[in-house]
């Protein structure tokens, strides 16, 4: 009950004041009213305090009515009024407390909605508890299922708890808190023994945090004085625990979801990266797709590209002399050397076919030729190592052609593959196999030649060739920039003579052709291509040419 000031009661209420005075007058009573400090609060003292009647409220004396015997009635009336006023004040005080609680809960809800991070929520909750409840220290403990122990995501106030001891004594604390009841604990000797709380802590207040009847943790406040915590404080703490439980659980679920999603994304990325190594990214991009998962049966695109084939000469006889493992090793190391060269010249490897590589250069034949020259140099390097290791050197032939190509996805819904279908591929492949007939390292067609910067490479025109099954012959050129330096020098020296010889050959002037080729072979005995043309020209000289001969070397085998 709050203290009632008689002065306030009578002073505030002017109506009551005048009514009493009037009542007293009508009843013929002459009284005055004093408070406990002998101050007159109403009326005028007339001398005799013989008659003195107490004004009481709940056995407490708050004042006196003095002066007249009948004053007792006034005293009784005033006592009633004082008591009513005291009740009103008391009620008002309780309502104000409740209002304060409502305010706290409101504000707390607002704060909770501003963060979705579990640790942040824990700290906000604890800070609010410490702010609204007189306490010296506070912690929140949460059960960590993965680690099988209690975690302490937030602390506040003085250091009166030991988080490490809490973790170590998880099972003991679980037993204490497992009932799920929130309460004020005064007997905490066991906790002090275990070093969980400091010696100077006198009592603890604990509110369980629950989600669907499962206890997930608790908020614990500590006080260094006894009787510091009251029932109203516990009620507030329970409310805060209730509000934060749901929020923290949601935050945790959200966080673990995010983790899971990240892990899956990483896994998918890895798969993507891996597939790129099996189906070239450039192929997929050319189809206008971003990833292999977007590719559909029937997707196709037509492009003008340069196709390049490379093959190891006499591979069959070489491989016969090796074990399967040695074979695999050999081809693998060969491919490993050439792959990077192709890529660094803006090309991509479309397929590995045994000892042969098919590469596509989408931009220009110039890229392809530069790559081809570099590759031949790499083969020389490869051979140096082989000879040093006592192994025989190898020879590789390279053929290229520029034309349109269809890249597409073929097969059926259960087995698809990237396919390149066109004449361009066939032509390139056949040019490559021609290298063993002409004894040339790199052969290219006139279609490819159109895109090449001739000033940067060594080229020789080798006339026409009729590929099997084709209507028209194509022009063939040899690039000898990738040969050994002695070979390059020799061919350069005899270049104009060679061109002359080829010219005679194509116009069926075999006499002059033979003469010129003989001279070339004399000057450059290592020029096997010249020897090839020499024997052909010699044959036609003696036997004559067939009817409708167009000057082309005929490829009788594919």
């Amino acid at each position: 009950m709050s203290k009632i000031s008689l002065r306030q009661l009578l002073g505030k209420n002017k109506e009551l004041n005048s009514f009493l005075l009037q009542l007293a007058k009508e009843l013929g009573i002459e009284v005055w009213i004093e408070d406990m400090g002998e101050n007159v609060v109403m009326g005028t003292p007339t001398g005799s305090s013989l008659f003195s009647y107490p004004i009481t409220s709940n056995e407490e004396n708050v004042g006196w009515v003095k002066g007249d015997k009948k004053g007792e009635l006034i005293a009784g009336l005033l006592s009633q009024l004082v008591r009513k006023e005291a009740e009103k004040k008391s009620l008002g005080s309780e309502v104000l407390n409740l209002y304060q609680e409502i305010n706290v809960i409101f504000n707390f809800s607002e704060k909770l909605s501003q963060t979705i991070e579990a640790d942040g929520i824990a700290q906000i909750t604890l800070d609010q508890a410490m702010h609204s409840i007189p306490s010296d220290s506070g912690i929140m403990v949460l059960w960590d299922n993965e680690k099988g122990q209690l975690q302490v995501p937030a602390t506040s106030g003085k250091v009166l708890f030991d988080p490490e001891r809490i973790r170590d004594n998880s099972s003991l604390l679980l037993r204490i808190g497992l009932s799920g009841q929130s309460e004020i604990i005064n007997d905490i000797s066991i906790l002090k023994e275990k070093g969980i709380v400091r010696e100077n802590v006198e009592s603890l207040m604990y509110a369980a945090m629950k989600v669907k009847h499962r206890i997930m943790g608790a908020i614990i406040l500590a006080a260094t004085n006894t009787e510091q915590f009251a029932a109203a404080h516990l009620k507030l703490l329970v409310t805060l625990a209730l509000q934060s439980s749901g929020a923290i659980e949601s935050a945790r679920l959200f966080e673990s979801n995010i983790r899971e999603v990240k892990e899956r994304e990483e896994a998918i990325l890895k798969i993507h990266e891996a597939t790129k190594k099996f189906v070239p990214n450039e192929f997929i991009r050319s189809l206008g797709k971003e990833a292999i998962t977007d590719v559909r049966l029937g997707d196709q695109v037509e492009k003008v590209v340069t196709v390049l084939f490379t093959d190891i000469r006499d591979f069959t006889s070489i491989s016969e002399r090796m074990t399967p493992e040695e074979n695999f090793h050999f081809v693998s190391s060969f491919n490993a050397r050439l792959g990077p060269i192709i890529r660094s010249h803006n090309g991509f490897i479309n397929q590995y076919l045994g000892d042969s590589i098919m590469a596509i250069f989408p931009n220009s034949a110039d890229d392809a030729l530069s790559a081809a020259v570099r590759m031949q140099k790499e083969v020389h390097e490869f051979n140096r190592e082989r000879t040093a290791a006592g192994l025989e050197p190898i020879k590789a032939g390279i053929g290229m052609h520029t034309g349109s190509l269809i890249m597409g996805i073929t097969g059926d819904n259960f087995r698809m593959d990237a396919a390149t279908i066109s004449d361009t591929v066939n032509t390139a492949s056949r040019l490559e196999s021609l290298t063993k007939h002409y004894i040339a390292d790199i052969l290219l067609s006139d279609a490819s030649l159109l895109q090449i910067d001739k000033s940067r490479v060594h080229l020789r025109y080798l006339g026409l060739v009729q590929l099997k099954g084709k209507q028209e012959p194509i022009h063939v050129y040899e690039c000898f920039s990738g040969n050994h330096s002695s070979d390059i020098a020799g061919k350069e020296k005899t270049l104009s003579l060679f061109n002359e010889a080829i010219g005679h050959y194509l116009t069926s002037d075999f006499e002059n052709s033979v003469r010129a080729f003989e001279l070339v072979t004399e000057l450059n005995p290592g020029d096997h291509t010249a020897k090839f043309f020499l024997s052909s020209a010699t044959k036609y000289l003696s036997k004559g040419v067939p009817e409708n001969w167009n000057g082309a070397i005929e490829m009788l085998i594919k």
Partner: protein
Amino acid sequence: MDKKILIVDDEAHIRMLIGQTLEELEDEGVEFLTADNGASALELIQTEKPHLVFLDVMMPRMNGMDVCQKVKKELAIEDVYIILLTAKGQELDRQRGQEVGADVYMTKPFDPEVLLSKAKQVLQLD
């Protein structure tokens, strides 16, 4: 001169709560006046000249904004500190509150501690 506080709200419990919160000021000689509608409030302000007025916005017939406007802008009564009270979620009124010349803006439910310290500050009783 004795300080006067006027509490204007159509809800009895708010009038009671504000009074309860500021109870201790009674010992310092502060006089409390109340009104439950805008028209009476206006009259009381003109006759009693309270130093501090708690004015609820949402009231029937004449709302707090209009009272404030009248007092601060039209009648330009000086030395009256007006605190507007409004429900949470109606914070857009803040702008309007500034326009009508309110001194402070508080939301309900209010923080009793904040209310008390503000009152003390305004009446220079801190």
